[in-house]
């Protein structure tokens, strides 16, 4: 039992736990202290020197790094504090070029806030970094793009060429953009990339005012596009490569296209934050309404795609377990994780499930099944994903996620998903179009790809994919036991209808509490059907690397492992609103589980829309299912980076 430490802040008595810093106590008591390089997810940096306070006898200290001592007298607003903090902020301000009007993080920018709050004189220094470069991570070389453009010119109908060429240019432009002219050298990106995600893609070079944080030239390192640097950067210097300008343009001039928006599970519990709603507020209805208000032709829900993913992945898992294939089977719906495996652990690629990800499933059904329903050409449907993720921008450009369709007896290759907007980009688009998101009247998503089970919803949280797959695997195992195979699954047999025929088939378990929670690594033994599975759920690439190393060294082994690149899963994704911290992630996660609890249908195999597709579109055709729902991994080059200005 430790004794509490008594001390004073601004002449008022406070108590601290041993080890607490001055900043910890101030934050807990709502005493405002400005911070830039301090992020609750990270270790203390002490680089920005703006969280200054004056301690009697010690002078000015940074509150983030100074532990409270007994009888300390802290002043958070003395003349010295104001003088030094002001000048330090002013010098930081002069590092950061103000492109506020075109910055999608304008509303959450602490620099802008402090400038007003502390009445900074922001013009006394010249912008010393204004000529610094802009780097795009993953940008393709000109030759690759030229080949693609030639293909479009030779194969696409004339009226489509302009749009598709622009799109190809965007897809070749890379996925993450680092604007060094905005960087304030706080080192947070390097810290998160090196110590949390263990990718070491950032490097700080030189010294003095030549100090520069930049992507590395080391060819053994690559960016996984997870976007954790993006959500942790305090000044918006790092962003996903923007897709919103082309989306805005195409919404204005549709050129005869049908434009579909599809929303990822976790966006519904996070986007409200961009409009000052509370953390984790569920805004599915507002999302559907806002999509239509922007001029999209339909609002589909990726949670439905997630049900397809679950259905296929559970089937794959059961076949995997019955086969002699090496275990474990890893999930593959997180493109950051897939890139991580492909680049850093190519030996592990055969362990990835071949099931495509929910955004791809949802979009491919839109361009095939739905296109047939509404009698449209796939090439005339544009799918825009609204994602919590920057890596999804990379996923849609992969060769394995393009599909071929026939038009005028000519085969043309189309991207399955055309554009990816991050949650932040979508919110920015709404703000630009002056759509009052907070007060818009809720609407429903469009059918048939607009209503999912609860299992699809929890995809947005670490452990959700696992839980969804376990729910369905539990059912499939019983079907298999009862009928000897999974043919009825492939045929989309309706659970409720066959219940009488296969009387013993029933769900035994819905909630798998052991796979839930925000911890970086969870391991459990779960019972599905009659078998016990050793499972692990991991979030964060550093934890993933640790697990892979442990497995390599035979310290542990599993049957089925879910991995998400971002802390907490997609709710903590690289495309989500800023700021983010453990508490905010928890609130977002709780909201997703809450939606799941309240739904009457909570398993993928009970989703009637899904079963209908299997019955009426797939007809048990294994080849078709394989082609649309699964992919083959192939080596992709290192993305690296290129300067673009």
């Amino acid at each position, binding site marked *: 039992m430790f004794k509490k430490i008594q001390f004073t802040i601004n002449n008022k008595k406070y108590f601290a736990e041993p080890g607490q810093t001055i900043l910890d106590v101030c934050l807990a008591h709502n005493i405002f202290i400005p911070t830039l390089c301090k992020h609750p997810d990270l270790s203390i940096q002490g680089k920005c020197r*703006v969280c200054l306070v004056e301690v009697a006898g010690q002078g000015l200290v940074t509150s983030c790094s100074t*532990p409270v001592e007994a009888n300390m007298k802290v002043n958070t607003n003395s003349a010295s504090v104001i003088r*030094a903090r002001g000048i*330090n902020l002013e010098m930081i301000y*002069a590092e950061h070029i103000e492109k506020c009007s075109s910055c999608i993080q304008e509303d959450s920018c602490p620099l802008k806030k402090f400038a007003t709050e502390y009445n900074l004189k922001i013009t006394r220094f010249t912008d010393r970094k204004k000529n610094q470069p802009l780097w795009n991570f993953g940008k393709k070389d000109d030759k690759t793009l030229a080949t693609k453009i030639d293909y479009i010119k030779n194969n696409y109908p004339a009226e489509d060429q302009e749009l598709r060429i622009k799109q190809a240019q965007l897809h070749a432009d890379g996925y993450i953009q680092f604007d060094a002219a905005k960087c304030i*050298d706080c080192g947070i990106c390097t810290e998160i990339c090196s110590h949390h995600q263990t990718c070491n893609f950032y490097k700080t070079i030189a010294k003095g005012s030549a100090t520069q944080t930049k992507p590395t030239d080391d060819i053994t390192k690559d960016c996984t596009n997870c976007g954790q640097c993006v959500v942790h950067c305090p000044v918006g210097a790092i962003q996903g490569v923007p897709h919103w300008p082309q989306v805005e343009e195409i919404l204005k001039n549709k050129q005869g296209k049908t434009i579909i928006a599809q929303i990822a599970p976790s966006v519904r519990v996070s986007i409200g934050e961009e409009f000052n709603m509370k953390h984790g507020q569920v805004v599915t209805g507002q999302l559907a309404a806002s999509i239509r208000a922007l001029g999209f032709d339909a609002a589909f829900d990726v949670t439905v795609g997630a049900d397809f993913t679950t259905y296929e992945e559970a089937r794959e898992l059961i076949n995997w377990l019955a086969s002699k294939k090496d275990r474990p089977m890893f999930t593959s719906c997180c493109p950051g994780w897939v890139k991580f495996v492909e680049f850093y652990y190519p030996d592990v690629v055969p362990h990835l499930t071949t099931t495509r990800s929910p955004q791809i499933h949802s979009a491919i059904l839109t361009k095939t099944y739905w296109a047939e329903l509404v009698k449209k050409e796939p090439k005339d449907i544009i799918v825009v994903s609204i994602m919590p993720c920057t890596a999804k921008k990379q996923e849609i450009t992969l060769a394995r996620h393009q599909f071929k369709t026939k038009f005028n007896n000519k085969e043309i290759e189309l991207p399955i998903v055309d554009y990816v907007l991050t949650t932040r980009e979508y919110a920015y688009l709404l703000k630009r179009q002056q759509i009052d998101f907070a007060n818009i009247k809720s609407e429903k998503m469009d059918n048939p790809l607009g209503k999912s089970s609860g299992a699809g919803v929890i995809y947005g949280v670490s452990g959700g994919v696992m839980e969804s797959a376990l729910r369905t695997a539990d059912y499939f195992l019983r079907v298999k036991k009862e009928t000897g195979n999974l043919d009825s699954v492939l045929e989309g047999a309706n659970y409720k209808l066959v219940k009488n025929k296969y009387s013993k088939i029933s769900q035994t378990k819905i909630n798998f509490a052991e796979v839930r929670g925000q911890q970086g690594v969870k391991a459990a033994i779960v019972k599905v059907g009659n078998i016990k599975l050793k499972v692990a759920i991991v979030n964060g690439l550093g934890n993933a690397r640790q697990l892979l190393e442990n497995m390599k060294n035979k310290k542990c082994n599993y049957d089925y492992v879910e991995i998400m690149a971002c802390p907490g899963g997609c709710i903590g994704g690289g495309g989500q609103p800023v700021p983010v911290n453990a508490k905010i992630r928890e609130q977002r996660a709780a909201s997703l589980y809450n939606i799941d609890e309240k739904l009457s249908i909570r398993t993928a195999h009970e989703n009637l829309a899904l079963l209908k597709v299997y019955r009426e579109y797939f007809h048990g055709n294994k080849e078709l299912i394989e082609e649309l729902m699964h992919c083959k991994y192939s080596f992709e080059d290192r993305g690296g980076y290129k300067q673009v200005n």
Partner: protein
Amino acid sequence: MFKCLNVYMFKFSWRAKLLKKIEQAGLLGRGCGTFPVAKKWAAVLAAPGKEKYVICNISESEPGIFKDKFIIENYPEKVIDGILVAMDFLKATRGFIYLNPTYYQVYKNKLQILIGDNNIELFSKPAHDYIGGEESALINLMEGQREEPRLRPPYVTTQGFKNAPTLVNNCETFYAIALISQDKYQHKKFFCISGDQTPETVLSLPETTNLQDALAASGYYPTFSFFVQLGGAMAGECLRAEQLKNYTIQHASGLVVHQLDKDEHKLIQHWLNFFAGESCGKCVTCREGTYRLREMYAQGNFDQQLFSDIIFSMQHTALCSLGSMAVKALTSYYQNIKKQPLDKISATVKKCDF
């Protein structure tokens, strides 16, 4: 109970006796921090950890200071003795000597022979820089990390190299330790004198010698009007000739003589240029402060209040002491030589390019 017994046993151990000797000698670190050596040693000894490390710092990056070079030239065996005493004292199995790249080229073979079978490793780095003298930056360098100071706490005495308790002392400190442990210590220290019309001289003088006597002892007491920089040609504090007898050599390793009629602007730009180039770039105050001071001063006509605000911030809010050291020469020049308040600094008289 066992703890009491341990404390009781320690009182009679040779370690306690040595520590007592160092304490009684009043030995202060001979780098530039002048931290009490006994206190540092006791802290590393008390820090929990199976593995402990001893590092001898021969970075000597301040221009105008060359006494470490003099010591390894003349008394290298004493330095190694001192390191071995420290390793023994801490039960450390590995010791290190860091030499700046220039010294490393010259002395590595000589030192290697003297080290012999002892587990002391020599190391250096490709290019010379200023921040290497800072102990946590030095440890970062050893660990292959970016060479920049660490945030304190934790101190390197408890979490230094590889997160283990680490003793970092200057080479002269180890030299003094060797003498103390052999009961030959005479409360003397090395002192460097150099500057305008003053050849580089290293003296061994009693710690209490004042600067006037030290300068006289060198045989080069200036015959012209002069001022000195105490502590080195970059970070040293400027003092008038009349102030010399008020300071002893205890807290600095040397002084640099300047002609009083030296071009003020050239000198200030020289200091500002040096630190703008040598700031490690980690914290805003030092990285931006050194840059902005240089920029403003070079422009000539600048906002004096803003200039002194930056200096204030550098003195009080930089992450390591380099921030305050970077403006020490400048501020003391104004206070002691020009006798002008800081916010009246002006560079408008004339501009010069450096």
